[in-house]
């Protein structure tokens, strides 16, 4: 029991970078912009964040620097994808590779250095609640911020009016343009704020949950973030569930390794990725015509469940917008 509580607490903590990255991706994609550079962006931002914190001996400066780097990479995606109308997929992919190598190259002096890190801050009173206190309130400020960000982003996107406009821009930009909205500005803002979150996700590793800097420090988390946003059907709470599910799979995998279950390590390491692919395939297949015709024959509550699972991508995701067209 105690072990389970500790595991859950660790799960909450270790999901934070993934959570920040997925929320960043989510904000951009709801406005119709794919920022495929997530993994490279996280690496570069994490490295710069660590370097700045190391040099200034101040964690806050490190996070600010990381957010700025993430935002700058996103601005490049924005300029090439929104202003010049290039393929966002191609641009993001190239940037991911570029930033990854850049982080390895520029981060060389900081490898294996130990620098400052976020310090734990159990919340007084709440931390003393049995079980729940350990799971939720024995963390550090960054982790609390990540937890609070989920309802904040969900409310912003689904309930607020700027969020409505953001979604409209991702669905049918020409309609929002005709309604007097500056589509380009909304898209830039969304992708840059998303980029800043992605940058923070990188620093969440180097300054908190996997302190220090090494090559490929994120171990591919950025790519997983992109998949989890699809898995979560562009909804903040489902994405959060996806992040915890992924972290849980990883925990189980490492536990199995420790218990010496006679399974090759590699199998366990890639297992979460495989599960992710299978889940994506199943969710996707639910929206095929054949399955859809079957769905209308099942009881109504089940139909609603399936409709919930298969909610579609923003209609204009990745498509450039031309006001004259």
């Amino acid at each position, binding site marked *: 029991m105690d072990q389970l509580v500790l595991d859950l607490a660790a799960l909450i903590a270790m999901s934070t970078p993934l959570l920040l990255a997925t929320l960043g991706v989510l904000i951009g994609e709801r406005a119709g912009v794919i920022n495929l550079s997530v993994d490279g962006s996280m690496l570069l931002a994490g490295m710069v964040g660590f370097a700045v914190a190391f040099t200034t001996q101040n964690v806050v400066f490190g996070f600010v620097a990381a957010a700025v780097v993430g935002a700058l990479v996103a601005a490049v995606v924005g300029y090439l994808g929104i202003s010049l109308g290039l393929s966002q997929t191609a641009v993001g992919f190239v940037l991911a590779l570029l930033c990854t190598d850049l982080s390895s190259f520029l981060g060389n002096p900081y490898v294996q250095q130990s620098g400052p890190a976020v310090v734990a801050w159990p919340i007084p009173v709440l931390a003393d609640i049995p079980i729940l206190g350990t799971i939720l309130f024995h963390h550090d400020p960054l982790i609390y911020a990540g937890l609070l960000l989920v309802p904040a982003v969900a409310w912003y996107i689904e309930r607020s*009016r700027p969020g*409505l*406009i953001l*979604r*409209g821009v991702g*669905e*049918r930009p*020409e*309609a*929002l*343009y*005709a*309604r*007097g*909205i*500056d589509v380009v500005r909304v898209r830039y803002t969304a992708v840059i704020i998303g980029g800043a979150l992605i940058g923070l996700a990188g620093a969440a590793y180097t300054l908190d949950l996997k302190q220090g800097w090494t090559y490929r420090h994120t171990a591919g988390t950025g790519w997983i973030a992109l998949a989890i946003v699809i898995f979560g059907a562009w909804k903040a709470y489902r994405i959060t569930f996806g992040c915890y599910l992924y972290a849980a799979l990883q925990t189980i995998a490492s536990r199995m390794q420790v218990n010496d279950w006679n399974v090759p390590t590699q199998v366990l390491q890639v297992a979460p990725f495989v599960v992710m692919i299978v889940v994506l395939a199943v969710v996707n297949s639910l929206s095929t015509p054949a399955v859809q015709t079957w769905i209308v024959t099942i009881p109504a509550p089940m139909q609603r469940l399936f409709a919930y699972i298969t909610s*579609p991508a923003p*209609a204009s995701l990745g498509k450039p917008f031309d*006001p*004259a067209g």
Partner: protein
Amino acid sequence: MHISIRNLCKAFGNVVANNDISVDFAAGQIHGILGENGAGKSTLMKMLSGIYTLDSGAVAINGNEVLLGAPIRSLQVGIGMVGQDPLDIPVFTILQNIAAGAQIAGHTQIADSFAAWNALLGFELQPHLRIQQLTVGQRQQVEIIRLLITGSQVLILDEPTTGISAAQKDALFGALRTIAREGKTVLFVTHKLDEVAALCDTVTVLRAGSLVGTQAQMPVAKDVILQAMFGDRSAQASFTVGHHHPNGTLWHLNDVVMQSANLRLGPFSQEIAAGQIIGLAGLEGSGQTLYLQHLAGMRLPRSGSIRFLNRQLVGARHDAVYLPADRLHEGIIPSMSLVEHVQLLHKHLLDPGQTARQKVLQLIRDYNIKATPDIALELLSGGNQQRAMLALIPESARVILVEHPTRGLDAYSAESIWHRLQERCTRGTTVVFFSADLEEVMTYSDAIIVFYGGSLSRILDRDTLTEQSLARLIGGVGFAEVMQ
């Protein structure tokens, strides 16, 4: 709100869409803007609503000149437009659609204003339904209410009656009258004469990008408006085209209903003879494409039967070739050459040797195509593309169904296309085409079918018609007498 338009011009490349247009629209009235397809109505309205920028000219509202050029500016001065395909967001609810935009107050106010306008205009919209659950007519109603809530004083409707039901049309007309009574200005763009007669206080006619005469107070005699819309075309009638003699019946249509998303033709029965050229006349979107696709077997009738050569038509046939209007996207593969197209069509020509190339060289000579065998078709001029498409139709084709055979072509290219089509017809191929150009329909058809408001006419002998009588039929005047 009184709008004054002065010397407005707009060109796209070499095509002048609006030429020096000056007109006034008074407040509290419904103004009809009438013209053929391509007369420049939509261009004018898109400039007013800020989707297009003006090349030159000025717009004043209540005497004060305003700067347009972006939708936000038009909305700020109070001009709003409902497009033919309403620009809304399918996954949003009605209320969300109204809330998503500039110039909107808080949520509760939206719901209240919505309810008020919904009641005043006699619409029966339920605010929490999603747009994707609504019909085109209902989506239009949502757009109208949205614009009124944002404070539009000028409401532009671009061809609003296309694709909506008769009941919705009545509701729309009632609502527009109410809106005009509120002191707002309504601009009603259409090509349907009877709608202007039924609804509008004034009529303004555009032809080929220019204003014809001046704005007139309704009522105006239909003949006068038709004359303004189509010009005096009888003067240039010179038929040098020979008649073709029909032989045998090609299609038997029996109680056929043709239906697409927003159009329904029939039920009607028809027999169509082989070996002639049949022109489909009517304003664009009146069902001509639907009709052609049914004759081609690409669509099957909702009910009734179509027999082709005494056999039930069950799908597209190799000997009935359909050439769509959008030839660059649907007719050819733009980046492929003539040789590659020939190889695609004839599997046995896909050889390393020169068979396909020789065939192409022959086609280039026969059809007078200015091209080399290996140049990508997208690099050819429109006329050459069209000739290339014709050349690619196998000799075995019994039927050629073609949309706008000469749209966008100069007179010389157009003539040469018709020369080829007539050659084919003389050799026994049946040609069915539709064109927005009345003169083309009158010049080249042996028989004509007129489409109007979801119905089609009997097969009419060309010689029983004049351009003027055809223009009347297209506008719906006297259409009932020739209806199927």
